[in-house]
């Protein structure tokens, strides 16, 4: 058990160390959104333009209530129908490894 625990700890440290460089080298994640023809288009990407794949998108209304969520596609996009009766939308992306960002669509942007 002790041996097993030591092995687990060592593997965890190894995994942690091997992940560190990618964390340090990785660029900021961003999400961008715009409204067209009753749809909200979002695009999530790293600074070098690499799309965020399978990133978790959450959408909140002006009362900070989560109204929907989904995953980004291979090209970093996620599209949903413009919810009715909202004054603003806060769209968050979680690309994992602490890479989070958000984009706010104000009332003017929703029209």
């Amino acid at each position: 058990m002790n041996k097993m625990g030591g092995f687990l700890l060592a593997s965890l440290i190894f995994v942690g160390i091997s992940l560190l460089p990618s964390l340090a080298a990785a660029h900021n994640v961003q999400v961008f959104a715009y409204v067209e023809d009753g749809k909200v288009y979002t695009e999530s990407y790293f600074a070098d333009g690499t799309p965020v794949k399978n990133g978790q998108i959450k959408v909140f209304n002006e009362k900070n209530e989560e109204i929907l969520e989904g995953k980004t596609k291979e090209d970093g996009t996620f599209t949903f129908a413009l919810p009715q009766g909202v004054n603003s939308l806060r769209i968050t992306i979680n690309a994992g490894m602490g890479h989070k960002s958000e984009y706010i669509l104000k009332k003017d942007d929703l029209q």
Partner: protein
Amino acid sequence: MKNIKRAFSVIIVFFFILAGTSIAFAHFGVILPSDDIVTPKDSKTIQLDIKFMHPMEGSYMEMAKPKKFGVLIRGSEVKNLTPKIQAKKTKSPEQQKEFTYWSLSYSIKKPGDYVFFVEPQPYWEPAEDKFIVHYTKVCVNAMGMETGWDAKINLPIEIIPLTRPYGIWTGNVFRGQVLLNGKPAPFIEVEVEYLNPSKGPNKVHPPADPFITQVIKTDANGVFTYAMPKAGWWGFAALADAPWKLKYNGQEKNVEIGGVFWVHTVDMK
């Protein structure tokens, strides 16, 4: 006889003044955006001014409506914006009359690098007995996606940045490769000028003419490097003789083609 001599010397002096100005004043095509790094919090609509001027002196030349003004988005999507540009007038404090430049407001729709470019009408410069055509570019980054700044427009002469052309500190070097007909242009001149404000603490007073236009040359691979000593806009103009001629009053004249790129530096503080 004395009078003739005096008149003659006046003419000589006048001639030297004229010659002096034409040497000291370098022409630059200019595209100046109101913002070169558009963040999610900024306005998505930017203003772009398209000018033909002497940047260090801040003086203008008349600019005919450009043949083409466009943008290359993320290095893949080209949009022709020529129908959207509008004529405006301006002058430097020292100039008597106003000159035409061109302007448009542009709304950014998605993240990425926006490389704006202009192909002007040939400008006839009597002092140099030639036409001047400056193909000018500037890059605006939108919402943190750094993709497309090093893309080619395929202009007759063009600077491809080797330094990402935004988010540059004062004192950084700007490196670029000059392509002439798509091929690296070795050992050609690149003129560099600071866009000097007409007043205020950033106004520069060149102590002698050679300070106005900095002159560097590309290396064997067509690459140039220049360190920018002050915050503001810097223009780089790679110059060559066009392989074609244009007629002026029925006579064939040389055409100077320039590949121009503008970058903005910010003080570290």
